[in-house]
């Protein structure tokens, strides 16, 4: 498998002077195309910071970050926004859906915001994804009226709209019961298998991590295993 992204000697500090906190301490990592990896580690180890940097929402203090051959450390905000829209998807722990929009409108958002409108093709793709998530009867439901599990499945479907190369999931099942969590993981595994999308899933749950083919352990800001 070819490398999708590569970060090396990644350093991230917050604050200055005595209040300075070094969260990442020279972390290096390579993810290959089509991988499904779990990111494990105790709280405060730097998992969320690493995901945030990999998602181009934050820049590292030092180190390199290259994805699909693009130097993302040197890119400006507009370039990063476009890159993020086309190549990276996010699944958050608390679904983070847009509350005033329907399930379909939430899913279609990443495509519509780029095209400037909701195209029929985008809506068809959105319906297809929601059907795949078992939400075909909830397509036009306001997202606020969905159950917790349904919301999280919409949140899994949303980053897939633009067929991204990488989906970063931060505790995607952390807020769900065991049954719902396993359902969501089944869906992620299915998409990984069928579409070749690379997943990096941050979790504390050993069971969830065991469903991934690779486990990456972060401790004190560096990869330990």
């Amino acid at each position, binding site marked *: 498998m070819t490398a999708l992204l590569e970060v090396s000697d990644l350093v991230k500090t917050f604050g200055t002077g005595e209040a300075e906190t070094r969260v990442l301490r020279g972390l290096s990592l390579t993810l290959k195309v089509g991988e499904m990896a779990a990111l494990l580690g105790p709280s405060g180890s730097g998992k969320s910071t690493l995901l945030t940097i990999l998602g181009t929402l934050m820049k590292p203090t030092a180190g390199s970050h290259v994805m699909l051959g693009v130097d993302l450390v040197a890119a400006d*905000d507009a370039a990063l926004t476009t890159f*993020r829209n086309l190549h990276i998807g996010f699944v958050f722990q608390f679904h983070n859906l*847009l509350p*005033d929009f329907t399930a379909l409108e939430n899913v279609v*958002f990443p495509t519509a915001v780029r095209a400037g*409108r909701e195209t029929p093709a985008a809506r068809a793709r959105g319906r297809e994804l929601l059907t795949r998530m078992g939400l075909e009867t909830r397509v036009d439901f306001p997202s606020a009226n969905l159950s917790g599990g349904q919301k999280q499945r919409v949140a899994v479907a*949303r*980053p897939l709209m633009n067929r991204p190369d990488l989906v970063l999931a931060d505790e995607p099942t952390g807020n769900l019961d065991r049954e719902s969590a396993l359902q969501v993981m089944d869906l992620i595994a299915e998409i990984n298998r069928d579409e070749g999308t690379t997943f990096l899933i941050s979790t504390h749950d050993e069971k969830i991590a065991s469903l991934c083919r690779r486990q990456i352990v972060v401790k004190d800001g560096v990869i330990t295993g």
Partner: protein
Amino acid sequence: MLYALKIATRYLTASKAQTALLVLGVAVGVFIFIFMSALIGGLAEFILSRTVGDISHVTITAEDRDPAILISPEGHVLAVTERGRARTATLAEAATYLPLIEAVPGVVAVSPQITGAGFLTRGAQVAQVSVTGLQPGRESAILDLDGYMTQGSVRLGSGLIVLGETLADDLSLRLGQTLRLQSSTGVSAVLTLSGIYTTGNGMIDASSTYVSLSTARTLFALPQGVTRIEIKLDDLNVADATARRIRALTGLNAVPRTDGAEQLMEALNAQAQTGYFLKSFALITIVIGVASALLLSTYRRRPEIGIMRAMGARRGFVIFVFVTQGALIGLMGGVSGAALGYMALLPFPPRDAFEAGTLPMDITQGSYGLAITLTVIGAILASILPARAAARVDPVTAIGQ
């Protein structure tokens, strides 16, 4: 940007009560703007109509010749003709100039007149009066005599006279009665009272009389020409320029009313300035209201803005969403306020029927289009600060909230 419009609309409709209150606030501001425009405009109209509305805006008078002097061969002045109070100079070629003056832009009425003084006699009663000879058909060209008539008709024919109610009461006159008018030149005429008016101006009602131009010719022994030409304009503010133009065109002594009316013009300008201030305050209120409401919305929607940014929404997109919300609020508030203002002004009498004791509101001076345009522009400007704040939201911090 159709998609940004959809999101902006969705945000506004998601909080209906909040949006309705905001639009109402803007509408009230626009309503005040329109109400003030109609009031200030109507008031100015009212004051003008009551002060200079019934008088000539530009007047052409014949220039008196120098008094004749009899000088002896030795150069001594033997006799000088004393200048009389009565105007004797005439505009002999007035008829030639009338079409030329009427064609000047801004001129709405031209009235050639013969004016002079005289004595009105009814039995043993005598009153000193001013006499104005008007051309039939142009009786109401300057002073709206027709509008002030309380009895009879303003139509002046040969042998007819129209006078004020106070004068009629003083001489115990009734319509159809005959009276004798003797001019300052000593010519007398027996006239029939054909109309009585009340202008509300004590001087005019007590001492002014109107006869036909032909009657005045007889009374003042002027077989041709007139003593003055009065001109009314559609805008008093251009009286100076129009007078200059008429002087250049005709060579006649055209004098604008604004000579001597500076205080009135200053008062009207001050009133207009006051109106601008009040309308500006209304607009500022709108801007502050929209800005504060959108800032609040920006703060409330920080997590959503963070998600949008994470999903690939550019800063410009976020700015457009919030600016569009401001524009929509401005448009809805502007149109609602304008409609409210128009409906509130409907019960007031039209400008032609202003009466003392009522608010002189002029519905035609509501500045509706201007109010809506300024409101939309103001709301857009007001939304720029919240929109920029929204675009600066850090997705990492916002999503973590």
